[in-house]
């Protein structure tokens, strides 16, 4: 179990371009297809991960590791996520940073940015889809209401994400 956790998150760490939200569908795919958790448990874990500072993807990895194999699992999963950064940064710093321009990197990122955009849209749709498929339900309607209000507040008043998350938690207690 520990070995599998490490390998899976190492793999995810290698492709976690564009930061946290774009990585959520990748983690979801691995965690669900391996039977580590159900869709509902995953959604709960990511919501919890959003409450902590730092990258939501790394936090989600920590939580999944913890729920699958305790504290050791949490440490192993987190280490898997950050290890590729460490190796790559050492390699990049040693070689590429000296070459002044990083054309090669921006070339690879050219294809990535639009793809990450698609991945993020997918993340929002997939993550929002009710786990029992019941679109015509009170809980789905309530969730859409919270999404709409949060978006309005983020765009119109540029509120800090922390305030949005705290407010949504309170709204959840009232609505559900």
């Amino acid at each position, binding site marked *: 179990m520990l070995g599998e956790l490490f390998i899976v998150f190492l793999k995810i760490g290698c*492709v976690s371009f564009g930061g946290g939200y774009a990585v959520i569908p*990748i983690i979801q795919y691995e965690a669900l297809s391996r039977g580590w958790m159900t869709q509902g448990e995953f959604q709960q874990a990511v919501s*919890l991960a959003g409450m902590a500072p730092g*990258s*939501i993807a790394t936090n989600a990895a920590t939580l999944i590791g913890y729920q699958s194999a305790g504290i050791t699992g949490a440490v192993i999963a987190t280490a898997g996520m950050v290890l590729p950064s460490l190796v790559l940064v050492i390699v990049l710093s040693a070689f590429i940073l000296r070459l002044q321009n990083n054309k090669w990197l921006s070339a690879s990122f050219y294809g*990535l940015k*639009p*793809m990450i955009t698609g991945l993020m849209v997918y993340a929002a749709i997939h993550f929002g889809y009710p786990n029992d498929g019941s679109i015509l339900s009170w809980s789905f309607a309530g969730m*859409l209401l919270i*999404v709409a209000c949060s978006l309005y507040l983020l765009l119109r008043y540029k509120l800090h994400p922390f305030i949005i998350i705290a407010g949504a938690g309170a709204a959840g207690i009232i609505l559900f």
Partner: protein
Amino acid sequence: MANEQNNRLGMLLQLFWIFFRIGPTTFGGGYAMMPMIEREAVQKRQWLDEKEWMQLISLAGSAPGGVGVNAAAMVGYRQAGAAGAIIAIVGITLPTLLLVLLLGLFMRVFGDHPKLVAALKGIHGAVIALMVMAAYRMARAALFDVATTFVAVVTLAVLLFTTINPIYVVMAGLLGGIVFTKGKELLGMKVLTEKASVSRNSSEIEYYI
């Protein structure tokens, strides 16, 4: 000799302490950490100058992994080699790890409480809204011609209507970008890898992560 070793140890301790303090204060992901790292490493300690810092940011953002973690590792590596990079990453990750563990423990004990389940359902909605925001901001920066829009739409369609592991989609995007840009270069065409007039508004970037 002993003095040199002391200096090195002092540097490692300093790196750890700086990033340990930055880690837990950065709500909103990696880009929120950047101004704080800049203040510590560039302004206060002059480890890097402004130009080097800008280069470091662009590299940290392009490499896989969280931009904050990458930047910390780069600063650590510059100051104290591989050991410095490891110490910096441990420093910036540890506080969040402990906090998330506490949250996990809390969930394990009170996870069935209906009020907590309801609050998490509400937060679920907020996370979706933050995802939509991230996608919207990324789209504004990344989709500037037919090709890039096409790639985004195809990616979304593939993810929605097939069961391909998203990892392969990311790898395809990575390879495709290199082939496409190098191909254009070989044909002698002008390569535009970024939107011509990108407004570098740092307060907007932070939501990417």
